[in-house]
């Protein structure tokens, strides 16, 4: 039974360690970074359409007018803003020793990402 209680404590500690703004900031930074890195080649390929003339680029831009693509674009803007804000938070924690501020910085990072996402969404729709 002692092992069972110990195991439960370990699980509880793992949950506590993860249910923390710093952990979620880490997850968002990692996931946004990976998705943005994978998106980059497609983004550059799309802009490269201009090599075949403005009409070709316009054809691609009209494809992006679809609601689902617009929704994905808003998501990408939020990811970029989240990665920017989360990265700035990390640089501040590492180089400015603002460790007691970590929860505030995580909240600011989330706010910045949502603000940029909303500003883009209100202008693109």
């Amino acid at each position, binding site marked *: 039974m002692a092992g069972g209680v110990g195991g439960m404590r370990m699980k509880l500690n793992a949950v506590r360690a993860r249910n923390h703004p710093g952990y979620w900031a880490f997850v968002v930074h990692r996931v946004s970074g990976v998705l943005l*890195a994978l998106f980059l*080649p497609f983004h550059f390929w799309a802009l*490269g359409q201009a090599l075949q003339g403005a009409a070709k680029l316009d054809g691609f831009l009209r494809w992006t007018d679809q609601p689902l693509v617009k929704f994905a674009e808003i998501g990408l803007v939020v990811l970029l803003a989240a*990665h920017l804000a989360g990265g700035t938070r990390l640089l501040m924690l590492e180089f400015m020793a603002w460790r007691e501020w970590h929860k505030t910085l995580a909240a600011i990072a989330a706010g910045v990402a949502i603000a*940029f996402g909303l500003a883009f969404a209100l202008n693109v729709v």
Partner: protein
Amino acid sequence: MSARVEQNSLQVNARVEVWLWAAQRITAAIMALFVVAHLITMIYAVHHGLTAAQILGRTRGSAGWATFYAVFVALVAVHAPIGLRNVLAEHLDWRGVSLNTVMILFGILIAILGWRAVWAVCA
């Protein structure tokens, strides 16, 4: 492998890791300014309706935008592979020469496609 060769190899690896760590932070700090400018430009651009004429009217023949985006591409071609390398090493336990080779190739791919895109919209 002799103990001395192994120790030298470990020292080189540690030095490379320090350089990659520094490059990741330096590119991040510089790119923060570029990303803010990019986000504001995107919001401004979509507000006026995204068309090829509008994009190319702003960028074609502009040395300023060409320089901005060419430097942006160079920074991200360094930053993204280092970040991806860390994620793959920590989550998939993929390390060593194969991972380094794939990440260098990924960085080269981003640089080539990125500069091609800059040429396409600015030249």
